């Protein structure tokens, strides 16, 4: 296996992008990544497109070829990678594996989701497909309902409070306020979260990530040529992925995500680091409870101790560990297929020292955590600066 580095990343503004279609979102993020990497579009020899539901949401399938065409690539193999909300992280990992294994020297991972061409209700129903259609959704368990069931049991077992859930949303909106790419530029208070519309008790509207349009891209090359293109290539030091049952009720536990624990263990072992070495992390906060569980699954906190730590500000910008400096899915937005790659872009900027107002003082090691469905898929990647 070859060492692999990211030499370029690009992002679109996330949010309701009424003026933009799939092609324009792909162009915006893809060109930004190509320019950031100081390469030509003709150099790219492999393209993975992370996307969950282009067929459902835009009636456009075959977006591997669409993205390759849009970016004027030289006929590389291209394909769409679908893993529900973890599609982006999975596409990035596939690009990593292709370069590590020697079948690609310039791989692009590009995530995109165009979600606002259908009604919120249709988009929500489409996203529900991340759960078990026959045995959850048809029976009346909505997707937010699944995370609500996890939250309720977490509250029961560990004394987690609704105010602690709200603290995740407040922190992530604070970070998003400093990110020009973020869907929301609006600070919120605990009180506003608590008073927002109930979606699936105990989860309220402000506990849920929004429906967003957006795209993100990254370019991966073997580490030994990375310095030719970029002064601060970012090494992918470890990568892990795991699956679990599609239906929540079939899991060993619903107060954590086993697939994330397995994936992170693999990634930590490969990177030869422990959780306490991580300075900055982008985690999958599709709902506020998910960030609390992520902190525990990733080993940053013991089971049942993360909610209090978040409430105490330990995971704020320049806290003990800076979590979701981009604003996370909650504040930055969640164009599903783009999210996993946006997470990587944020970590790359943090490790390079290019994160502007939200730059973390000490950023040597970063981590991304991308979850599909209610925890049926998890991808964890670890990043290091190599100077």
């Amino acid at each position, binding site marked *: 296996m070859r060492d692999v580095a990211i030499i370029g990343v690009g992002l679109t503004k996330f949010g309701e992008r009424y003026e933009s279609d799939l092609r324009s979102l792909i162009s915006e993020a893809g060109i930004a990544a190509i320019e950031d990497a100081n390469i030509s579009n003709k150099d790219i020899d492999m393209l993975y497109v992370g996307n969950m539901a282009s067929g459902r949401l835009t009636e456009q399938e075959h977006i591997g070829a669409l993205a390759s065409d849009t970016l004027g690539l030289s006929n590389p193999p291209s394909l769409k990678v679908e893993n529900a909300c973890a599609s982006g992280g999975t596409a990035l990992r596939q690009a990593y594996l292709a370069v590590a294994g020697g079948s690609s020297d310039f791989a692009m991972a590009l995530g995109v989701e165009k979600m606002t061409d259908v009604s919120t*209700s249709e988009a929500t129903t489409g996203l529900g497909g991340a759960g078990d259609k026959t045995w959850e959704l048809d*029976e*009346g368990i909505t997707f*937010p309902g699944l995370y609500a*069931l996890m939250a309720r049991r977490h509250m029961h077992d560990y004394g987690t409070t609704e105010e602690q859930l709200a603290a995740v949303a407040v922190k992530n909106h604070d970070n998003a306020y400093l990110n020009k790419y973020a869907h929301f530029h609006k600070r919120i208070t605990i009180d506003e979260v608590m008073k927002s519309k*109930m979606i699936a008790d105990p989860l309220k509207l402000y506990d849920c990530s929004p429906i967003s349009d957006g795209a993100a891209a990254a370019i991966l090359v073997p580490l030994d040529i990375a310095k030719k293109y970029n002064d601060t290539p970012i090494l992918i030091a470890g990568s892990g992925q795991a699956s679990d049952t599609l239906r929540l009720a079939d899991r060993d536990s619903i107060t954590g995500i086993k697939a994330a624990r397995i994936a992170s263990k693999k990634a930590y072992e490969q990177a030869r680091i422990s959780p306490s070495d991580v300075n900055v992390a982008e985690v999958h906060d599709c709902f506020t409870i998910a960030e609390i569980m992520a902190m525990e699954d990733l080993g940053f906190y013991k089971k049942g101790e993360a909610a209090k730590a978040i409430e105490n500000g330990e995971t704020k910008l320049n806290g003990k560990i800076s979590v979701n400096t981009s604003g996370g899915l909650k504040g930055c937005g969640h164009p599903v297929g783009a999210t996993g790659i946006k997470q990587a872009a944020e970590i790359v900027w943090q490790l390079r020292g290019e994160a502007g107002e939200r730059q973390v003082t000490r950023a040597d090691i970063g981590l991304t955590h991308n979850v599909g469905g209610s925890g049926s898929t998890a991808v964890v990647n670890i990043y290091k600066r190599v100077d």
Partner: protein
Amino acid sequence: MKEPMYDFRNYGEKVNLFGNKCRSCGEIYYPKRNICPKCGKTEFDSFKISGKGEIYSYTKIEVPPEDFVDSKSYYAAIIKLEDGPLINGILVDPKNDFGIDIGDKVIPSMRKIKSDKDTGTVNYQIKFEDIGKK
């Protein structure tokens, strides 16, 4: 729009709570499986679960799916069955908003659940009735 068969393919399993039991390790599954995640064997016997159990977790869903037109909101739960496995289900509306708690016992109850938004076909499903802590 889906073919009408879609709504009924798993109907027998769902309304009768038919699961299965691994002939080798004895693990009980609902829905039924064809290969055992625990022991890897492929021989099973049909097993009708009682549907009795207790609430493991619950939520009140305030934004129902599009075809659940009859309901403004309803309770959903994960239930730990007496027979072993956990399943998810919908609860019969409680008498009041404070009537549901983790640990409450439930019994199965056949109820109308939705009408198909295209065909209007009415669908019945096993719901669960909270009968308190006992």
